[in-house]
């Protein structure tokens, strides 16, 4: 018995403005915020200065989609979705918690798993210093947070990559936490919602990072046996070893609008094929067209969409 979320309020129609960075006008107006639904209420006081810094400093921000200037306060209250063009700006994992989880509450697991420096890696700057800096900048212990939460009343195992933490890269800690997420979800028979935003495997931990792909996928493989849904959410950007492990293997793959998702980075591909990539390449709409994701969900609809999927796949009668 899970309570159904309240019906979304419709604050009005927002017209679809051109998004020049994808080279033209919106081809899918519905997906680009033609109709917006109410985002959860939040006050500016809810966002900390750390969060603001991670998405841009100052009181005003120019939309990277349409160039319109908004106040940070306004953007933050709309979960960083441009009120003019609907462009989705990157958002800190604390904001994702508020957007997706009931009361924004996460009972965290395995925060005591912390990074080490197995290769004693140094590239002008020591890896240990990079970690300290990322921790100070984000307030997070590592590039992923996991735990138990509720989504519109449904208990879930929740994980979210934090791109602001070394590009959301997957080293041993991220691999271990994701593995534990699936193992715990298996033993507690919980559905999994995992939000991806990562540049891929973490170079500074070398081959050990690569092995995290095998470790997390093995745990996911085992999780399948309890027949609980695994919803993969793909956020901007998700590439490399993270794209090539858990990201595309959800029972359902949900992607946010206009995110860049792919295996190889655009520069690598361009230098390989010796040509410019077409506009919109590796973007959400491209993925949908090529059959790689199930649905595009704007932030205004994300929670509702996740609730629907969890509820439907659990076979619950309403």
């Amino acid at each position, binding site marked *: 018995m899970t309570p159904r979320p309240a019906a979304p309020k419709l604050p009005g129609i927002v017209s679809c403005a051109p998004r020049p960075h994808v080279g033209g006008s919106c081809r899918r107006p519905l997906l680009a915020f033609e109709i917006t639904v109410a985002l959860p209420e939040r006050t500016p006081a809810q966002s900390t200065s750390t969060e603001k810094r991670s998405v841009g400093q100052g009181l005003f921000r120019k939309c990277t989609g349409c160039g319109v200037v908004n106040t940070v306060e306004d953007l933050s209250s709309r979960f960083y979705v441009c009120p003019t063009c609907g462009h989705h700006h990157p958002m800190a994992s604390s904001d994702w918690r508020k957007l997706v989880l009931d009361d924004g509450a996460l009972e965290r697991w395995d925060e005591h798993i912390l990074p080490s420096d197995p290769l004693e890696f140094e590239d002008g700057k020591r890896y240990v210093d990079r970690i300290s800096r990322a921790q100070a900048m984000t307030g997070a212990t590592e590039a992923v947070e996991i735990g138990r939460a509720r989504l519109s009343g449904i208990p879930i195992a929740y994980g979210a990559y934090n791109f602001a933490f070394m590009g959301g890269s997957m080293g041993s800690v991220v691999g271990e936490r994701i593995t534990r997420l699936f193992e715990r979800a298996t033993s507690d028979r919980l559905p999994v919602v995992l939000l991806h935003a990562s540049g891929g495997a973490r170079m500074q931990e070398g081959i050990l990072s690569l092995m995290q792909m095998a470790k997390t996928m093995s745990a996911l493989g085992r999780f399948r046996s309890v027949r609980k849904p695994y919803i993969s959410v793909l956020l901007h950007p998700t590439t490399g070893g993270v794209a090539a492990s858990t990201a595309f293997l959800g029972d359902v793959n949900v992607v946010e609008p206009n995110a860049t998702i792919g295996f*190889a980075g655009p520069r690598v591909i361009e230098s390989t094929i010796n040509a410019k990539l077409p506009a919109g390449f590796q973007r959400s709409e491209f993925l949908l067209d090529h059959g790689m994701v199930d649905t595009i969900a704007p932030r205004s609809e994300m929670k509702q969409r996740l609730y629907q999927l969890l509820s439907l796949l659990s076979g619950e009668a309403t």
Partner: protein
Amino acid sequence: MAHILAFERPVVELITRVRELRELASEDDRFGSELKRLEDKAARLAREVFAKLSPMQKVQLSRHPNRPYTNDYISRLFEDFVELHGDRRFAEDGALVAGVGRYHGRSVVVVGHQKGRTSKEQKLRNFGMPNPEGYRKAIRMYELAERFNLPIFTFVDTMGAYPGLGAEERGQSEAIGASIEVMSRMTVPIITTVIGEGGSGGALALGVANRVLVLEFSYYSVITPEGCAAILWKSAERAPDAAARLRITAPHLLEFGIADQIVEEPPGGAHQDHDDAAKRLDRALYAALTDLSDLSRDGLREDRYQRFRKLGAFVA
């Protein structure tokens, strides 16, 4: 035809003389003792020179154009090999060879990256860089092996999965991830050998095994040294630096638990003697397969799970 790297020249010259003498000795026994002496000397020199190789030089050896590729091992290790083609979805991918054959009398499934030597071959094999179809063919093979309870041998030799436009359109990420997951849940023995280059996810998609062997002069890395250098220092020329810092050579792989065993190569490297390289690998593969024969089908899956479960370094 013979391609010689600068640092291997003295070794190659000696090995060439041994080879010439061996031919003479086969006709005239008087050369026998001289042959033995020279063989020992060549082996000793090769070990000495190669012991001092830098990580980047080992990477160069792993990419040596004369190095044995998957097909060179298949022809020497497996009888009755029948190559099987296609992913049943879109295309055949020449960068990945697969099939069924007999290994010491036992039916097995074989999957491996395949590079090409001539430019025509290189095009056909796409330099050993598979598209999604290659990985989907591999998945077909794993499932075939599972259905008929056949052990799986995989051979890893790729710079990485192909970073192309079509590869992205057809789901390179999904294909690699799915291949990793399918391997993880198989209940047959899986033995992987890194025979040359172990380049990132494109390599790991063939590498979720119960036992992972690495040839002495192969490497396995999260990113190619060139790719790493390009990211860190915006210059591929610093690849030797990256190769050293990433710790990608066989001894490191053993130390980190990535590899279970290093397979020694013939003096001067596997490319100096394909037959000998295959013979040495055969011994290691046979031992690994025998070692796994006591495990039940579920036990094999569990063994693989635990093998990868413990990989990583963190503070807890």
